[in-house]
Structure formats: structure tokens, C-alpha cells
């Protein structure tokens, strides 16, 4: 038994085909072993865990861990040691090996992500690392992602989860026309090929799950006050594809938050992206009226009216759980007013700023020029405002707005451009995966044949020329009579 478990399964230089059979064999033997000898494994659990190296004998280690932990902790090993081993495994397992035992791996992931075995801070971190070990691109949504997001948001341990939630998700389980991978161990496979319900590395997701994930991401960014990212996350839900005029409640809720966060990050109410479904837009308009009203007032000059509106609809905000966001919006109002001055002034004294902008929290101008200075300092430090506060000879402090070209040096631009180009290159594998998957689908092939045939038929287009002639005749005829 030791020997079997300790089989070295590092791929090394092995050919994919050979390795594939080796691993499959091993998995077969392992499952036989688990069926017959699971009692022995439980008794000698600690011994096996010490014996095996999780990065080399990942499958065996996974098997042992799984037996010990699932369905319940069934061992005499001290809890601390056991958890240590679990963490060790999640941090170092060989992702390629484990593709062959997806169901087991997923169950262990969920154990780490949902139970109270691990303290949340450790659980979130370990699970996040494990998810990215399995799929370094992080571009495919799995059930583990959802567990991670729930755990991170509910326990407010957001920092360690960021590495996962910042990746852009473009693939989802259950996509049509999956290409059966030839060798599961192929390192060049796109994540959508080896993460599926069939390999057990993810469960099935529903549209509500997808939206829940984006919602949780948005909320996490909100609690970090990263309004721009939260805006993007909510926007994903707002523009969620729909069919036959469908709209879900989550989308409306997301729209409300999207409006508020948009005010915070962009200072105005943006139009939803063009691909937002028309029926959803209609619902948003009627169901989120209070929010759009607020947004309209946010860009106007009357702080008191904004404040009054915010107070009038207080129960609406409370019902939707958006009270604190609305408070943020009111606090941000004056900052955006100051930014608006940039479009008119190049230099302006602090007393003038105080006269021209009002705080929406109190509905009054700030009490003194010191308060204005403090507000401006905060804005400059946070990077919201690019300007400097200077003092005149006669002691009046004033704000100088810096021109946009002065903000970025040539080197910065070059760096930004290079980074952007790099990111675009990284899209290439995603394109390829999508093209491969869609290009071989039945519908596309059918369509391509049609196109080709139509091309042949249409060369001298008889319909077109015929129509033109008819129109011509009409033009010559009836004008006088109808005019």
C-alpha cells in the first residue's frame, strides 16, 4: 500500500500520452484501494500524511485527506496537525495531477471554504491560492469561486480574496460544444477545457450564482471604497444578458448600487452600456426612480435639494440596504463640485471655493477656509484632485489646478502603453479558446456553409437591380398628382 501511495507522479519529461495512462492507472488503483482499505487509512492517517509529499504524491495525499475529512472528521489525529496538513496540501498540490480527481479536490476546496474548520482569514487565503493554482488565469468561474466570495464577504476578510476576484471572468461551466480534451494533463489546455462538471472541478452554476458572485465582488470593493472597480462589477450584473424580456431582481438591486457607485467614481450618472437589454432598462427606470432622481441632483448646483431628496427617500435607501452608500454619496458631493471648478478656473482662492461649493451633508458651505483646505488636502492625497495649494504674498491661500499634460511624464506614458500591450497579448489565449470552441460548433459550420452558398448565388444580384428600376419609374410618375 505504501508503495502504491508513494508512486512518484511528477510529470517531468514524460509525454502527455504516456503520462495520461500512468495517472489514469494510478487513479484506478487508488479508488480500488479506497474502496477496500479505507478503514486502514483512517487508522494510519497520520503516518500516511507524514509519508507522502503533497506536491509529488498529490493524488494519494488527496485521497488520504479526503477519507479523513469527508463526510466528517473521522480520525484521532490532533486537529491542529490535520488542519496543518490540509493547508499544506492546498498550498502545494500539483494542479495537473489533481485534474484527474476533480470531485475529490472540489470537495476539499469546499471544506476549506465553507466549514468552520479553518479560521476565516486562513480559509480565504488558502482557498484563493488553491483556486489560482488550479487555474492560473483565473478566467473561469467555478463553484469554488462562489464559496470563496461568500466566505470572504461574510467574514469581512477581503484582502486575501482580491487576487481571485480581480481576475476577469470570461468562461462559465456548462458552455455548449465543449471540446473533449485529448489528454487532461496537457498543460496548454485552456481552463474551460479541464474545468467542467465532467472533470468535477466545478459544479453547475445558474445565472443567479453568476450574478451573486459579481454582486459579492462589488460589495467587497465597496467596503474597500474602491468605487471604480465596484462600478465595473455592478455593471456586469446591470448589463447581464437576458432573453425574452427577462429581468431578475438581482439586476435591479445591482442597478441601484451601480447608480450610487457611479456617482462616487465618475461624479455623474452614466448610461448603462449599450448592450444592456431594453426590457431591463425599462424596469430600471421605473423601479429605481429614487436613485436616478438623486443622481440628477448630484450633478446640479443645489446641495440643499440633494440633501432634502436624500432625507425624503431615507426609507427607500434603508429597505435596499444602501443607506451607507447614500451617505458616501452625500459626502462626495462637495468633492465633485470642487473638481467641477477645474473646468472653469485655473487658479482660485480658497474663500471662493468655500462660497461656490456647499456640503451636501449639512446643506451649508463649509464653516471656514481651514475646512476647505483640509478637504482639498484630502482630495489631493487620495489622488482625486491634481492640484496644489499655495499662498499669496498677502496670505490668501489658493488652489492651482495642474494641467492634464503635466500629470504624466513621457516615461509614464511609455510604461502605461507597454503594460496595456502586455494585457492585450494576454487576451490571445482567451480568443483562441473561444474561437476553437465556437468555430467547431454545429451551428457555426451550418452557417458557414450557408454563407458560402449565398455568396455564390448573389454575384449578379437580381433582386437588387430589379427593385431599383421599379423605384425609378415611381419617381418619374406620381409627383405632380401627389404634390
Amino acid at each position: 500500500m505504501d508503495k502504491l501511495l508513494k508512486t512518484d507522479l511528477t510529470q517531468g519529461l514524460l509525454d502527455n500520452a504516456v503520462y495520461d495512462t500512468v495517472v489514469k492507472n494510478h487513479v484506478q488503483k487508488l479508488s480500488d484501494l479506497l474502496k477496500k482499505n479505507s478503514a486502514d487509512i483512517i487508522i494510519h492517517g497520520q503516518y500516511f500524511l507524514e509519508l507522502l509529499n503533497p506536491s509529488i504524491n498529490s493524488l494519494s495525499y488527496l485521497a488520504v485527506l479526503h477519507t479523513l475529512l469527508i463526510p466528517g472528521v473521522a480520525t484521532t489525529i490532533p486537529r491542529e496537525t490535520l488542519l496543518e496538513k490540509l493547508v499544506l496540501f492546498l498550498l502545494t498540490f500539483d494542479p495537473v495531477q489533481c485534474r484527474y480527481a476533480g470531485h475529490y479536490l472540489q470537495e476539499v476546496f469546499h471544506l476549506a471554504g465553507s466549514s468552520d474548520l479553518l479560521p476565516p482569514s486562513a480559509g480565504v487565503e488558502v482557498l484563493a491560492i488553491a483556486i489560482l493554482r488550479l487555474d492560473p488565469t483565473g478566467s473561469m468561474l467555478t463553484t469554488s469561486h462562489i464559496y470563496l466570495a461568500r466566505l470572504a464577504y461574510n467574514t469581512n476578510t477581503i484582502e486575501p480574496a482580491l487576487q481571485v476576484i480581480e481576475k476577469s471572468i470570461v468562461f462559465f461551466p456548462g458552455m455548449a460544444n465543449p471540446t473533449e480534451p485529448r489528454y487532461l494533463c496537457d498543460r496548454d489546455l485552456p481552463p474551460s477545457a479541464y474545468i467542467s462538471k465532467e472533470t468535477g472541478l466545478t459544479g453547475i452554476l445558474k445565472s443567479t450564482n453568476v450574478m451573486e458572485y459579481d454582486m459579492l465582488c462589488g460589495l467587497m470593493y465597496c467596503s474597500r471604497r474602491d468605487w471604480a472597480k465596484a462600478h465595473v462589477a455592478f455593471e456586469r450584473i446591470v448589463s447581464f444578458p437576458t432573453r425574452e424580456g427577462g429581468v431578475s431582481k438581482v439586476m435591479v438591486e445591482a442597478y441601484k448600487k451601480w447608480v450610487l457607485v457611479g456617482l462616487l467614481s465618475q461624479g455623474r450618472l452614466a448610461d448603462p452600456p449599450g448592450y444592456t437589454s431594453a426590457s431591463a432598462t425599462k424596469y430600471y427606470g421605473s423601479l429605481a426612480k429614487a436613485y436616478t432622481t438623486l443622481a440628477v441632483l448630484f450633478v446640479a448646483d443645489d446641495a440643499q435639494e440633494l440633501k432634502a431628496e436624500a432625507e425624503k427617500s431615507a426609507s427607500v435607501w434603508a429597505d435596499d440596504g444602501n443607506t451607507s452608500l447614500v451617505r458616501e454619496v452625500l459626502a462626495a458631493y462637495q468633492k465633485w463640485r470642487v473638481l467641477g471648478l477645474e473646468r472653469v478656473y485655473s487658479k482660485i482662492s480658497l474663500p471662493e471655493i468655500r462660497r461656490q461649493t456647499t456640503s451636501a451633508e449639512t446643506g451649508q458651505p463649509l464653516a471656514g477656509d481651514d475646512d476647505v483646505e483640509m478637504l482639498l488636502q484630502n482630495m489631493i492625497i487620495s489622488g482625486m484632485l491634481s492640484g496644489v495649494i499655495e499662498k499669496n504674498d498677502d496670505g490668501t491661500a489658493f488652489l492651482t489646478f495642474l494641467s492634464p499634460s503635466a500629470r504624466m511624464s513621457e516615461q509614464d506614458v511609455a510604461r502605461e502603453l507597454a503594460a496595456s500591450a502586455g494585457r492585450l497579448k494576454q487576451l490571445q489565449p482567451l480568443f483562441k479558446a473561444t474561437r476553437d470552441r465556437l468555430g467547431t460548433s454545429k451551428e457555426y459550420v451550418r452557417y458557414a456553409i450557408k454563407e458560402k452558398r449565398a455568396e455564390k448565388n448573389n454575384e449578379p444580384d437580381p433582386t437588387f437591380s430589379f427593385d431599383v428600376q421599379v423605384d425609378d419609374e415611381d419617381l418619374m410618375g406620381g409627383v405632380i398628382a401627389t404634390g
Partner: protein
Amino acid sequence: MASDQHLLTYFTTMDNQGGIIVRDAPKLDLDLYISNYQGRTRFERLLLIGQCSVPLCVDALKAAIAEAKSGKDIERYRDAWECIRIAAPNEPEAIFDQAWVTATEKANKAETHRLEAELKGYKNNLVKESIRIGHRDLGEHLESIGDLNAASETYIKMRPDASTQAHIQDVGKHIISIMLQKGDWAGVSGNVNKVLINMSSEQQNADQPYHKIVSGIALLGSGKFYEAAKCFLETGDSTVAQQYNNIINLNDIATYGGILALASMDRLELQSRVLDNSSFRTYLELEPHVRKAVTMFVNGRYSSCLEILESYRADYLLDIYLQKHVSALFSMIRSKCIIQYFVPFSCVTLDTMSAAFAKPGESFEAELVSMVKSGALNARINTIDRLLVAVSVNPRAAMQKKALDAAKNYEKEALERIRRMSLASAGLEVKGSHKASALGGSGSLPGVGDIWYDNSRTQPASGESVA
């Protein structure tokens, strides 16, 4: 004293109804002014002055009553009387002339009957030309008694019997005249084009003044100042235009053309289209102050230009077609002056600017702020050194920013598209209720692919049948 009181109540009601009230005395002389016009427009103009101008109110209303009584339109008499009754109840015109009204009403009715009967006769005889004339006479009568809708209907009936180009134009002109009176600007433009389509270029040249005048008024009415200006500037032969003083007179053409051009054209265009325009010069000679204002603007003496215009504001406000647009036009000209003034500088002190432009009692800075805000003036205000600073454009930086934005957008859009494709292919869209899909008439789950497939199948088939 008492008459002042009456005027006050009169203008308060006018103000409440949303009318424009002109307190300053205009430069025009009422009698001279109205003698330049003919036809129904005379009454309209008099009534407008009576309703708007404080100094000319009573005189204008009296003239309006006289004008109405010389015609056959009872409604007009009533309108003018309603006004003068409040404004100047002590004048002899304020007594309602019931006898005239009854007599005119009777005469109008009889005339209508006579014409209708005549027309019936023509129709029985089936002589096309007579029917056309009959309709025209009836229409003209109806127009003169103020029944515009019936008149326009009658004019339209002339159309089937119009056999020559000249007849068709005649119909068009009659209809346009009604539409001008009703203020149906879109209708006027449409009819002008209709008439123009069927004309040879020779006729078009001959009729150019009319078309330009009418479409100019229509464009002005719908607020398209630049196009309107072009129309007036291209009016052409003034002796022909003179005939249309039942619509506007030559002085008006000069004023409209000049002011609209000032508001909507840049300096180069003003020079070439207005000042160097030989045919328009004849008009400008009639209104030398307009010519002067344009010259001032072109020569960069903006404050004098504004001064001249300002001194004629009251006159413009009493013009039936210009009235509504005066304030918009003036503010356009004003902001253009400010922008032009600033063009050669990278930096101007606020004090010099307000010396040139500030109106007494109004804050010039606030105006500047609103202009900068709206983007009309590409500059920033420096309140510390009291400067207006032009925004320097750095094309290199702008290009770099554009490149970065483009890359960012591309990335965002590419990801979003892949995401949506994946969502669709995983069947994760939010679906409408079953009820909705049942109403749609298709099966329980109509795959988009299937619908598309059916459509594409029928297409080649229909193509074959046509071939």
C-alpha cells in the same frame, strides 16, 4: 393719470399671459413703418406693436382698429378692440361698433354664398380653368374674412385643376401665405421645396427672391439661424423682392440677414457673404446701422458692434418674425464677440475684458463662468491674478491619452464580448417568464439558432423565384 393706470393694468395682463413687453421707445415711426407693408400683415404688425410697446401702444391699437375696419375680418376687429378696451377705454375706438360688425358679417356670408354658388356652376360645366379660378376666389375671400383653415382647404382643392407650371406655383404661394399667418414653419419649408422641384432653372431664378424670403422666415421661425441667414443673404434682385411687401419689406431683409449672419457666421464668412455680397448691398444700404454693426464686428471693434445692436433692440423686439428670437440672437452675438475678442490672446486680464464688455449692473465674471462651463470659451479663469488664460492644447499628450484610452476600451470590450458569448453558450441568460414566451407564439424554448436557420432557408428560395 387715469390713462397711465389703464396702460399699467393692460400691460400687467399682457405680462401675465407671457407676452414680451418693450418699455423703450423704438426708433421707428409708426406711420412710416406700416406704410411699407401691404395686405393682412399690416394688421398683424400693428396689433403686435400694440400688445408689446408701451410708448406706441395706443397709437398702434388705434391704427389696428382702423386697419381691421377697412377689411372684412371681424375676428381681427374683436381682437384689437379687446386690447384697446383695457388699454385706453376713453378713446373713441374703444366703443364696440356693433353696426359695422353686423353689416360686415352679413356681407361676408352673402359673398361666401355667392362664390360657392358660382363654383358649383363651374363644376357642373366641367371647365377646369373656371373651377380653379372659382376655388381661388373663394379661398381668397375666406382668407380675407379670417377663416384660414377653410381658405387653406379651398386652396388645396385648386391643385387637381392646375394645368401649367404657373398655376402650380400660384397654389403653392397661396398655401404658403396661409401657413406663414398660422406660423406653421415646417409646412412652409415643405411647400417651398415642393414648388421648387418642378421648376426649370430659369423660373427658379426669377422666383428666387420669393423662395428665399419665405424659406428664410420659416427657418428663422424654427430656430435654424445659419440656414436662415444664408437664405436672406441670397435673396437677390431687390426690385422683385419689393413685390412681396405683403410678407416683409426690404428693410426687414437687410435686418434679418445682417443679424442672423452676425449670430451664426464667423468673420471670414461675414466679410465674404455679407459685406462683399453685391446683391445684398442694396438691402444693407436701407439699414446702414446693420451694415455698420457687421463692419465693426469684422474689424474687431466688438463693443461698438454690440452698442449699435443694443440701441436697436426695441425695434427688433417689435418685429413679428424676429421678436421671439431677439434675446437668443443677441446673446449669441455677444458670446461670439467675447470669444473673438479672446482668440488672439493666450491670456487677458479680466479687467480689460470687463471694460470692453461688461453691461452696467451685471457681473461680467458670472457670464464668463457660464461661457467657460458650457464649453463655448476654451479658457480658464484665474481669480488670483485676475486673468483669463487660454487652454493650451498639447497634441502629443492628447494623442497619447487617446491611444491609452483606445487600448483600454479595446481590452474591456473584448473581455466583455467573450464573457457574453460564454454566458450565452452556457445558457445562463436571465429568461423571461413562460407566459411571455407563450404569448410570443413560439414553442416552449425556441432556440435562437432554429429561428435563424428557418429564415436563412427561405432567403435563397425567394431569390430564385425572382430570378
